[in-house]
Protein backbone atom coordinates (compact mmCIF):
# COMPACT_ATOMS: atom_id res chain seq x y z
CA UNK A 1 0.00 0.00 0.00
CA UNK A 2 1.31 3.44 -0.88
CA UNK A 3 2.18 6.06 1.73
CA UNK A 4 -0.60 8.31 0.43
CA UNK A 5 -3.16 5.53 0.91
CA UNK A 6 -1.95 4.98 4.48
CA UNK A 7 -2.34 8.66 5.26
CA UNK A 8 -5.81 8.71 3.73
CA UNK A 9 -6.90 5.75 5.80
CA UNK A 10 -5.60 7.34 9.01
CA UNK A 11 -7.59 10.46 8.27
CA UNK A 12 -10.67 8.57 7.14
CA UNK A 13 -10.66 6.55 10.39
CA UNK A 14 -10.76 9.77 12.41
CA UNK A 15 -13.62 11.13 10.29
CA UNK A 16 -15.62 7.89 10.50
CA UNK A 17 -15.27 7.63 14.29
CA UNK A 18 -16.13 11.33 14.64
CA UNK A 19 -19.19 11.03 12.40
CA UNK A 20 -20.56 8.21 14.55
CA UNK A 21 -19.69 9.78 17.90
CA UNK A 22 -21.16 13.16 16.96
CA UNK A 23 -24.62 11.57 17.07
CA UNK A 24 -24.29 11.14 20.82
CA UNK A 25 -21.91 13.93 21.82
CA UNK A 26 -22.54 17.59 22.67
CA UNK A 27 -23.54 19.57 19.53
CA UNK A 28 -20.43 21.78 19.79
CA UNK A 29 -18.22 18.72 19.36
CA UNK A 30 -19.19 18.52 15.68
CA UNK A 31 -17.45 21.85 15.21
CA UNK A 32 -14.55 20.72 17.41
CA UNK A 33 -13.96 17.62 15.28
CA UNK A 34 -13.86 19.73 12.11
CA UNK A 35 -11.31 22.12 13.62
CA UNK A 36 -9.27 19.20 14.95
CA UNK A 37 -9.43 17.56 11.51
CA UNK A 38 -7.53 20.55 10.11
CA UNK A 39 -4.76 20.08 12.67
CA UNK A 40 -4.59 16.33 12.03
CA UNK A 41 -4.50 16.85 8.28
CA UNK A 42 -1.63 19.33 8.60
CA UNK A 43 0.31 16.84 10.75
CA UNK A 44 -0.29 14.03 8.27
CA UNK A 45 0.68 16.12 5.24
CA UNK A 46 4.48 15.68 5.54
CA UNK A 47 3.99 11.95 5.00
CA UNK A 48 2.52 12.61 1.55
CA UNK A 49 5.19 12.46 -1.17
CA UNK A 50 5.63 15.81 -2.85
CA UNK A 51 4.37 17.82 0.09
CA UNK A 52 6.47 20.95 0.64
CA UNK A 53 7.13 21.81 4.27
CA UNK A 54 5.22 24.91 5.30
CA UNK A 55 5.93 26.51 8.70
CA UNK A 56 2.77 28.61 8.53
CA UNK A 57 0.68 25.44 8.37
CA UNK A 58 2.57 24.01 11.36
CA UNK A 59 1.79 27.23 13.23
CA UNK A 60 -1.85 26.87 12.31
CA UNK A 61 -1.94 23.29 13.67
CA UNK A 62 -0.30 24.47 16.87
CA UNK A 63 -2.82 27.31 17.15
CA UNK A 64 -5.66 24.80 16.80
CA UNK A 65 -4.19 22.40 19.36
CA UNK A 66 -3.87 25.18 21.91
CA UNK A 67 -7.22 26.76 21.20
CA UNK A 68 -9.55 23.81 20.66
CA UNK A 69 -9.77 22.99 24.38
CA UNK A 70 -11.67 26.25 24.91
CA UNK A 71 -14.71 24.26 23.79
CA UNK A 72 -14.75 22.86 27.33
CA UNK A 73 -14.61 26.33 28.91
CA UNK A 74 -17.25 28.45 27.24
CA UNK A 75 -19.05 28.75 23.93
CA UNK A 76 -17.98 32.41 23.67
CA UNK A 77 -14.30 31.64 24.14
CA UNK A 78 -14.53 28.77 21.66
CA UNK A 79 -16.30 30.99 19.12
CA UNK A 80 -13.55 33.59 19.52
CA UNK A 81 -10.93 30.89 18.85
CA UNK A 82 -12.81 29.81 15.71
CA UNK A 83 -13.06 33.40 14.50
CA UNK A 84 -9.29 33.73 14.84
CA UNK A 85 -8.83 30.39 13.07
CA UNK A 86 -10.90 31.52 10.10
CA UNK A 87 -8.98 34.79 10.02
CA UNK A 88 -5.61 33.01 10.03
CA UNK A 89 -6.81 30.60 7.35
CA UNK A 90 -8.02 33.51 5.17
CA UNK A 91 -4.61 35.18 5.48
CA UNK A 92 -2.94 31.93 4.41
CA UNK A 93 -5.32 31.46 1.50
CA UNK A 94 -4.77 35.02 0.28
CA UNK A 95 -1.00 34.60 0.55
CA UNK A 96 -1.16 31.34 -1.39
CA UNK A 97 -3.39 32.75 -4.14
CA UNK A 98 -1.03 35.67 -4.70
CA UNK A 99 2.02 33.41 -5.20
Amino acid at each position, binding site marked *: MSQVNKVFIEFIAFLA*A*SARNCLDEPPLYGSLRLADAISRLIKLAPQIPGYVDDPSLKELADFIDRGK*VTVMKSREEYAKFLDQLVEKTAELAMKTSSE
Partner: protein
Amino acid sequence: MEVLEAIRSRRSIRRFKPDPVPERLLLEILDAGRWAPSGGNIQPWLFIVVKDFKTLKLVKMFSPGLFGDPPVVVAICSDRKRAREVGGKLAEEYLSIVDCAMAAQNMMLAAHALGLGSCIIKSFSAQAIRKVLKLPEHIEPELLLSLGYPDEQPQPPPRRPLEEITFLDQYGEPLLKGGGEG
Protein backbone atom coordinates in the same frame (compact mmCIF):
# COMPACT_ATOMS: atom_id res chain seq x y z
CA MET B 1 1.76 14.46 47.61
CA GLU B 2 -1.23 14.92 49.89
CA VAL B 3 -4.50 13.52 48.56
CA LEU B 4 -6.35 16.84 48.69
CA GLU B 5 -3.47 18.61 46.99
CA ALA B 6 -3.47 15.95 44.26
CA ILE B 7 -7.23 16.29 43.78
CA ARG B 8 -7.04 20.06 43.42
CA SER B 9 -3.90 20.29 41.30
CA ARG B 10 -4.58 17.47 38.81
CA ARG B 11 -5.33 18.66 35.29
CA SER B 12 -6.35 16.87 32.13
CA ILE B 13 -3.21 16.78 30.00
CA ARG B 14 -3.54 16.88 26.22
CA ARG B 15 0.08 17.51 25.21
CA PHE B 16 2.71 14.95 26.12
CA LYS B 17 6.47 14.69 25.92
CA PRO B 18 7.66 11.67 23.91
CA ASP B 19 9.58 10.24 26.90
CA PRO B 20 8.47 6.72 27.78
CA VAL B 21 6.64 6.00 31.03
CA PRO B 22 8.87 3.88 33.31
CA GLU B 23 7.46 0.41 33.93
CA ARG B 24 7.61 0.87 37.71
CA LEU B 25 5.40 3.98 37.55
CA LEU B 26 3.00 2.35 35.15
CA LEU B 27 2.54 -0.59 37.52
CA GLU B 28 1.96 1.79 40.45
CA ILE B 29 -0.78 3.54 38.46
CA LEU B 30 -2.45 0.27 37.50
CA ASP B 31 -2.27 -0.87 41.12
CA ALA B 32 -3.98 2.35 42.22
CA GLY B 33 -6.80 1.47 39.82
CA ARG B 34 -7.05 -1.99 41.33
CA TRP B 35 -7.59 -0.46 44.79
CA ALA B 36 -10.66 1.53 43.76
CA PRO B 37 -13.95 0.66 45.42
CA SER B 38 -16.48 -1.37 43.43
CA GLY B 39 -20.11 -2.31 43.93
CA GLY B 40 -20.26 -5.65 45.79
CA ASN B 41 -16.48 -5.78 45.45
CA ILE B 42 -17.01 -7.26 42.00
CA GLN B 43 -13.93 -5.51 40.59
CA PRO B 44 -15.24 -5.75 37.03
CA TRP B 45 -12.33 -3.83 35.53
CA LEU B 46 -9.58 -4.91 33.17
CA PHE B 47 -6.74 -2.63 32.15
CA ILE B 48 -5.22 -3.07 28.70
CA VAL B 49 -1.95 -1.19 28.44
CA VAL B 50 -1.22 -0.03 24.90
CA LYS B 51 2.42 0.87 24.24
CA ASP B 52 3.13 -0.67 20.85
CA PHE B 53 3.52 2.15 18.28
CA LYS B 54 1.28 0.59 15.64
CA THR B 55 -1.48 -0.27 18.10
CA LEU B 56 -1.29 3.20 19.67
CA LYS B 57 -1.67 4.72 16.22
CA LEU B 58 -4.73 2.58 15.51
CA VAL B 59 -6.27 3.49 18.87
CA LYS B 60 -5.65 7.18 18.16
CA MET B 61 -7.15 6.96 14.67
CA PHE B 62 -10.48 5.88 16.12
CA SER B 63 -10.44 8.13 19.19
CA PRO B 64 -11.39 11.68 18.23
CA GLY B 65 -11.20 12.69 21.91
CA LEU B 66 -7.61 11.53 22.29
CA PHE B 67 -5.41 14.60 21.97
CA GLY B 68 -1.63 14.74 21.78
CA ASP B 69 0.70 11.78 21.36
CA PRO B 70 0.79 9.95 24.69
CA PRO B 71 3.37 7.16 24.88
CA VAL B 72 0.87 4.98 26.75
CA VAL B 73 -2.88 4.55 26.60
CA VAL B 74 -4.70 2.34 29.07
CA ALA B 75 -8.03 0.95 27.90
CA ILE B 76 -10.16 0.64 31.01
CA CYS B 77 -12.62 -2.13 30.26
CA SER B 78 -15.39 -3.81 32.18
CA ASP B 79 -16.03 -7.52 32.25
CA ARG B 80 -19.81 -7.44 31.82
CA LYS B 81 -20.11 -11.23 32.15
CA ARG B 82 -18.38 -11.22 35.52
CA ALA B 83 -20.52 -8.25 36.61
CA ARG B 84 -23.74 -10.02 35.60
CA GLU B 85 -22.83 -13.34 37.17
CA VAL B 86 -21.85 -11.81 40.51
CA GLY B 87 -23.99 -8.69 40.73
CA GLY B 88 -26.94 -9.19 38.39
CA LYS B 89 -28.46 -6.65 36.03
CA LEU B 90 -27.58 -3.62 38.17
CA ALA B 91 -23.89 -4.53 38.15
CA GLU B 92 -23.87 -5.44 34.47
CA GLU B 93 -25.58 -2.31 33.20
CA TYR B 94 -24.63 0.34 35.73
CA LEU B 95 -22.14 -0.54 38.44
CA SER B 96 -19.53 -1.85 36.02
CA ILE B 97 -19.40 1.61 34.42
CA VAL B 98 -19.16 3.60 37.65
CA ASP B 99 -16.63 1.13 39.05
CA CYS B 100 -14.40 1.71 36.03
CA ALA B 101 -14.81 5.47 36.49
CA MET B 102 -13.67 5.18 40.10
CA ALA B 103 -10.66 3.11 39.04
CA ALA B 104 -9.90 5.75 36.41
CA GLN B 105 -9.95 8.54 38.99
CA ASN B 106 -7.56 6.59 41.23
CA MET B 107 -5.23 6.09 38.29
CA MET B 108 -5.30 9.75 37.30
CA LEU B 109 -4.50 10.88 40.83
CA ALA B 110 -1.73 8.29 41.11
CA ALA B 111 -0.27 9.43 37.78
CA HIS B 112 -0.34 13.04 38.94
CA ALA B 113 1.32 12.17 42.26
CA LEU B 114 4.07 10.39 40.30
CA GLY B 115 4.73 13.39 38.07
CA LEU B 116 2.83 12.08 35.05
CA GLY B 117 -0.04 13.61 33.15
CA SER B 118 -3.23 11.90 32.10
CA CYS B 119 -6.54 12.50 30.40
CA ILE B 120 -9.68 10.43 30.49
CA ILE B 121 -11.37 9.84 27.13
CA LYS B 122 -14.82 8.63 26.23
CA SER B 123 -14.86 9.99 22.68
CA PHE B 124 -13.72 6.89 20.85
CA SER B 125 -15.33 4.32 18.62
CA ALA B 126 -16.05 1.38 20.90
CA GLN B 127 -16.61 -0.84 17.86
CA ALA B 128 -13.21 -0.01 16.39
CA ILE B 129 -11.36 -0.22 19.72
CA ARG B 130 -12.99 -3.61 20.30
CA LYS B 131 -11.53 -4.80 17.00
CA VAL B 132 -8.08 -3.23 17.46
CA LEU B 133 -7.65 -4.64 20.98
CA LYS B 134 -9.28 -7.97 20.09
CA LEU B 135 -11.80 -7.71 22.91
CA PRO B 136 -14.22 -10.60 23.36
CA GLU B 137 -17.98 -9.89 23.36
CA HIS B 138 -18.33 -9.59 27.14
CA ILE B 139 -15.45 -7.12 27.57
CA GLU B 140 -16.61 -3.54 27.11
CA PRO B 141 -14.16 -0.69 26.54
CA GLU B 142 -15.44 1.96 28.95
CA LEU B 143 -12.74 4.62 28.99
CA LEU B 144 -9.31 5.35 27.58
CA LEU B 145 -6.66 6.87 29.79
CA SER B 146 -3.78 8.65 28.09
CA LEU B 147 -0.55 8.72 30.09
CA GLY B 148 2.80 10.42 29.72
CA TYR B 149 4.99 13.24 30.92
CA PRO B 150 3.06 16.51 30.53
CA ASP B 151 4.17 19.07 27.96
CA GLU B 152 1.77 21.72 29.21
CA GLN B 153 0.47 23.18 32.45
CA PRO B 154 -3.17 23.96 31.81
CA GLN B 155 -4.99 26.53 33.90
CA PRO B 156 -7.73 25.06 36.06
CA PRO B 157 -11.05 25.14 34.22
CA PRO B 158 -13.92 26.90 35.98
CA ARG B 159 -15.70 24.97 38.74
CA ARG B 160 -19.32 25.45 39.74
CA PRO B 161 -19.40 27.07 43.18
CA LEU B 162 -20.21 24.89 46.18
CA GLU B 163 -23.26 27.06 46.90
CA GLU B 164 -24.74 25.98 43.58
CA ILE B 165 -24.29 22.25 44.02
CA THR B 166 -24.78 21.57 47.74
CA PHE B 167 -27.90 21.44 49.90
CA LEU B 168 -28.62 20.74 53.52
CA ASP B 169 -31.07 17.98 54.47
CA GLN B 170 -33.28 18.56 51.44
CA TYR B 171 -33.09 19.84 47.89
CA GLY B 172 -33.24 23.60 47.71
CA GLU B 173 -32.08 24.28 51.27
CA PRO B 174 -28.68 25.97 51.06
CA LEU B 175 -25.81 24.30 52.89
CA LEU B 176 -23.69 27.44 52.63
CA LYS B 177 -25.20 30.77 53.55
CA GLY B 178 -23.02 32.77 51.13
CA GLY B 179 -19.31 33.38 51.28
CA GLY B 180 -18.52 29.72 50.64
CA GLU B 181 -15.56 28.61 48.62
CA GLY B 182 -16.09 29.01 44.88
